[in-house]
């Protein structure tokens, strides 16, 4: 009850501030439709890939690909953290 009341107050303030702003128009329906088609095609392709690779392996591959693309950033971040640790200092 206490948490809910506090949360309700905060969100009410945010909503009040938002109400002061003008409303922006929605994205044109054509673009939305095209995006939905793209999403459905992506899901279809993913379904076929899952049939070939199996869902578990496909998840691992997708995760690995993301990790590969961000390898440099992840590597430097990890090394930065390790250097900050006492065990990582020379």
């Amino acid at each position, binding site marked *: *009850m*206490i*948490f*809910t009341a506090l*949360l*309700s107050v905060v*969100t009410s303030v*945010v*909503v009040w501030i*938002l*109400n002061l*702003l*003008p*409303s*922006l*128009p*929605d*994205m044109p329906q054509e*673009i*939305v439709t095209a*995006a*939905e088609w*793209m*999403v*459905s*095609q*992506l*899901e*279809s*392709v*993913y*379904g*076929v890939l*899952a*049939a*070939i*690779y*199996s*869902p578990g*392996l496909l998840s691992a*591959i*997708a995760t*690995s*690909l993301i990790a*590969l693309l961000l*390898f*440099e950033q992840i*590597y*430097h971040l990890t090394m930065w953290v390790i250097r900050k640790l006492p065990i990582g200092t020379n």
Partner: protein
Amino acid sequence: MRDLDPLEKFKLLFLLFFAVVIVFMSTFHIAARRAEAWTAGSDDPLTSCSDFGDTYSGIGGNPLQDLADGIIPLGSAPASAQTDAQDYLSGGYEPGVDHYAFAWAKATSGEPFKLWYSATLPSGWTSVGALSDEFGENALYIGDNVWSWSPTDYGTNYDYPNSPGYANNGIYEDALGCLQIAGDYYLRGTYDGFPIENYTFGGTPVTQDPPGQCGSSKPFYTNKDGLADYGDASIINVIGEVANGDFTLAGGVYDVLMHEIDTGTIDQSVYKSYALFEFRQNREDPWTYGTDAPVLVMVTPSTIVGENLLEWHQNPDGSFKFTTLKSSVRWESKSDSNGDYGDGYDESGNEWYDIEYYYYDSGNREFSMSPGWSIDNIRCVNFIFASDDASTYDVEWQHGDYFGDYTNFVETYDPEVEEPCSTFDIACHIGKIFDGVADTFLGVGEAIVGGIASLFIPNVDEVKSIFTNLFDAVSDKLGFLLFPFEFFIDAFTGMANAASCAPNCSINFGNMFGGDLVVDPLEIQASIPSYYAIGVNIIRGTTVLTLIGAFYHKFKEVSAS
């Protein structure tokens, strides 16, 4: 040739990999199409019995021609299959003289093609029939004297003769009942006078309601409204009708029922609802022992109020199929002289009747009746009978008012309601007082704990509602600015929730690539399973090794910098 750097090697390897995948898919897709030789109908592959659009274009022609030409090997199947096919194709078929039939079906998995051939149709039978999805997706029944082949063992595993009509439901579970027996290739039954034209399985199967019985092709209902001819149609009413001579329960069934009632041997805490159907054949002596025996089914969930217990349909050939929707016990007649029930009951004058009962834990049990059963003589009754224990039953039975009240009792039946104490049962009254005091203390304690907990532990629904309102306000104000975020959320959510596309893997990219591009790995798998398994494992292994190599080179590259 200059040395490629690791990143270039990775790109090259990946390109090669995708080239292999595309070649693999294209090659086997075409091969699968050729091997299967089915032309797509409304959709392909078949996913339900309502999809009758697919037609067979033949391995070497049409199935009948294939059979006549010996392309479909006969194996140990009768040679008359081939000669009959030749006879039919050459116009030698003589109505009223020749008796044979052909039908084809496409299975949804495994074997892509099945052929059924039937000869020497018995009186009153279609040779081959299919049940639509109305009767269950996998329901396929085959008439008498039917041989079947599969593509992998044509003729070597034929099944003859099948028992009339329905014995193969379990055998052909993978085969949808989508037989191509209309149009160019269709069931060619020549049974004299049999309206074979009605059995064109190009669409809705023939259903026919027994006149005035059991509610016109609708499911049985446990309430009286669902039963057309029997009012509240309880077994009790039936028994009453038996007494009045209006309704004849089979002697054995009646005997079993009364035995159970009288002795209380039915476990009332378990078996509370009953459905009964019984049959008699259209002949002078309807209850002679045999497959014509009446059947009593007891449907036995713990509580049933207002639910369907049975469904039934009449098959196109006039036979009936009943499906119990709950777990059931079945009574069957048995011909021996050591009866537990009905001993000494001589129904027909020359057979001792006995009834055994069999317990089936699973629901959806099917019973089928051949067309020999007259729809004029079928009686199907669905009824509820409920009681907390057998003793209650006995008491009410003795008072003679149980049956009159049972319907209301059932409709208001609540297993949570306690039995009231009898007037002079002091121990019961004292026990209830103590129970009440204990319940009060427990209730107060629970209320205090619940009140304190609600102060600090938020209600999930309330929190969810707050965030929903906040998101609505934000999306209302930000409009198109939110679109990219929504798009990526939808895309990732869709991919995260996307499972394997099996069993419907067709992806139609339309004519984006200059023609119809359909990717369907499962079709390949069904056609050439061994190659498919090898190919898939190569793809998987290549991908994993490529990724490992890419990680290795990337690590070397980054760590060196």
